[in-house]
């Protein structure tokens, strides 16, 4: 309770919570803020049905009914911004929690066993660290590749689709668990020698109980900080992948990709067509800042003895 009070007495932490709560509220209220055409099955994009003489390729400025105008191709910026929040939160939480679970489990079990097994695990972890995540996306695209036009899918594809997995998600999960292993491993290797663990073992505590009850709770704080940071950075990565065309699924990234020619193309102007990039960019940046600040606050709250390493 006291530590909670202390946590909320830091202004950056309050700011972080405010930003995150705002995003969550927007995500919850999405159907009210931006009513979808099909409430049962809301699409992340809406094509504005304004009838103007201008070409479809010229972005429409903000006007009544279109608070933030459209991108080229008449995509409603405000609508995508709102529904993109939902998708961003879902993606960030799924990927960060899944990677954390994988990493913590591997790290804890292998550190608990120790010896050559642990050395082997750490060697594999180091090998994974050399892999640039981006390179995995196209590989997983193959896994989800539709067999033929009649859309017969393999059981694996069925499973992955029903879990809501897309190739970028799978890549990020498979290739970013390594920091968790390293963190948890180092902590548990230290804790194993501490007297209370030895005591628990001597009175006959089982392996699972030792790991879950005595080791993990004390080894997990740095991993929790990393989860906070990852939620933001995974969403930003997804947007970057979508923008450069190695992935899909980030509505925010897609908006920027569609608007690209009006940001850096021949007739682009950062001032004239600000609505094409500015709202989405700010949404992305503040999403990252919110989770980063939160992770920072958690870091000083959970690891008080670690050197003071505030972001700001």
């Amino acid at each position, binding site marked *: 309770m006291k530590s909670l009070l202390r946590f909320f007495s830091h202004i950056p932490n309050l700011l972080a919570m405010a930003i995150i709560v705002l995003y969550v509220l927007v995500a919850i209220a999405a159907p009210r803020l931006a009513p979808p055409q099909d409430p049962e099955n809301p699409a992340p994009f809406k094509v504005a049905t304004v009838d103007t003489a201008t070409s479809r390729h010229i972005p429409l400025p903000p006007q009544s009914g279109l608070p933030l105008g459209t991108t080229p191709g008449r995509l409603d910026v405000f609508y995508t911004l709102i529904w993109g929040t939902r998708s961003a939160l879902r993606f960030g939480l799924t990927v960060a929690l899944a990677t954390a679970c994988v990493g913590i489990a591997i790290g804890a079990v292998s550190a608990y066993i120790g010896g050559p097994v642990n050395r082997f695990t750490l060697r594999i972890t*180091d090998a994974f660290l050399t892999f640039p995540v981006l390179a*995995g996306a*196209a590989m997983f695209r*193959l896994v989800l590749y539709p067999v033929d036009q009649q859309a017969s899918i393999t059981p694996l594809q069925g499973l992955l689709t029903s879990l809501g997995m897309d190739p970028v998600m799978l890549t990020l999960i498979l290739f970013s668990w390594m920091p968790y292993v390293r963190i948890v491993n180092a902590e548990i290797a230290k804790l194993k020698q501490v007297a209370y663990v030895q005591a628990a073992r001597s009175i006959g505590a089982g392996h699972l109980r030792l790991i879950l009850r005595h080791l993990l709770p004390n080894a997990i704080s740095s991993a929790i900080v990393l989860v906070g940071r990852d939620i933001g950075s995974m969403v930003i990565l997804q947007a970057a992948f979508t923008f450069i065309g190695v992935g899909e699924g980030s509505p925010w990234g897609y908006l920027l990709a569609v608007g690209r020619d009006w940001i*850096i193309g021949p007739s682009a*102007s950062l001032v004239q067509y600000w609505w094409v990039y500015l709202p989405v*960019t700010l949404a992305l940046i503040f999403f990252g800042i919110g989770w980063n600040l939160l992770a920072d606050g958690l870091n000083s709250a959970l690891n008080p003895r670690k050197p003071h390493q505030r*972001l700001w």
Partner: protein
Amino acid sequence: MSPMLKFIIRRLLAVPITLLVITVVLYGIVMLAPIEARVSLYEPRGGRSRNPEALRQYIIREYGLNDPYPVQYARWAFRLLQGDWGWSPLLRADVLDALVVRTPATVELTLYSTLLLVPLGLASGVVAGWRTGRSVDYGFRLIAFIGTSIPPFVLGLMLLGIFYVGLHWFPPGRIDISDSFVVTSPAFNHVTGLLTIDGLLNGRLDISLNAFRHLVLPAITLSLAHWATLGRVTRTAIIEERTKEYITAARGRGLPKQAVIWRHALRNAMIPGLNSTALSAASLIMGVFVVEIVFGFPGISELATLSWAYTPDAAAAMGFAIYSVLLVLPLMFILDIIQAIVDPRIREGIAEQ
């Protein structure tokens, strides 16, 4: 054997293990793909077949695509070692050739970004850490915060919007079109493949300068986030070093402050920073790919976008994935070596690393 040599050999021995792990995982992913997609890993060289179904059956039989995983993996890995990385129907080229041709551009971008970010990151971390609480420190922390908050691809877009569309200072791409004719002409000697250096070697200063102009924005975009991280780690380290006794002793003996900072404190403070940069070498290379695409820089990332856009081209996707690890490894190796040179514990073989 000197400890340093031992260190280098141990690092080099880790390379085959790393490659083994990565290829086993990648081929494992290919094995999960439906066989229709998997066939594209063994596409025959040359044109399209008039009868794709028959070709597919032929490939499945010829390359034993229904064999158990270890057999298939071993067969495929053997081909890989012989330099046969498969044929990409998309690029209409050998995957390995396509990658090698595009490598210099990627290497050039990585090289200049690293040369920019490592010294700057270390220096700014030291300056900020030595003067905590002063305006320099606040300035550094503010810029570092902004640097890590802006996603690189967004930063790249903004820089292009301002400095290319608005001011016409720095264009995208690798070289101006007029100069690209010079570069592709047979008279131009490609010694290193890096245009900035080859321009000088060919006595064409203008080519070098032009290539530099094209490198400015991508290098800044790429460096900013990693610079900020490196600077922060160094700052924390120098704050810790500052209070140690050897610093007080050196100052007490009358050594000038600047000498103490840059000759003694920095040496110890740069180790954690270099270590974290080496560990994030993969994310640096990934940043290179993203920046290449944003700036239209013709590096190897082209294979990533193409193999995503036109599936199935397993050979291109797989080739790109393996090759990008081959780019990360040397970068990591160099940063590790620098760290080892600086760190007396590794240099003298005291630490059990």
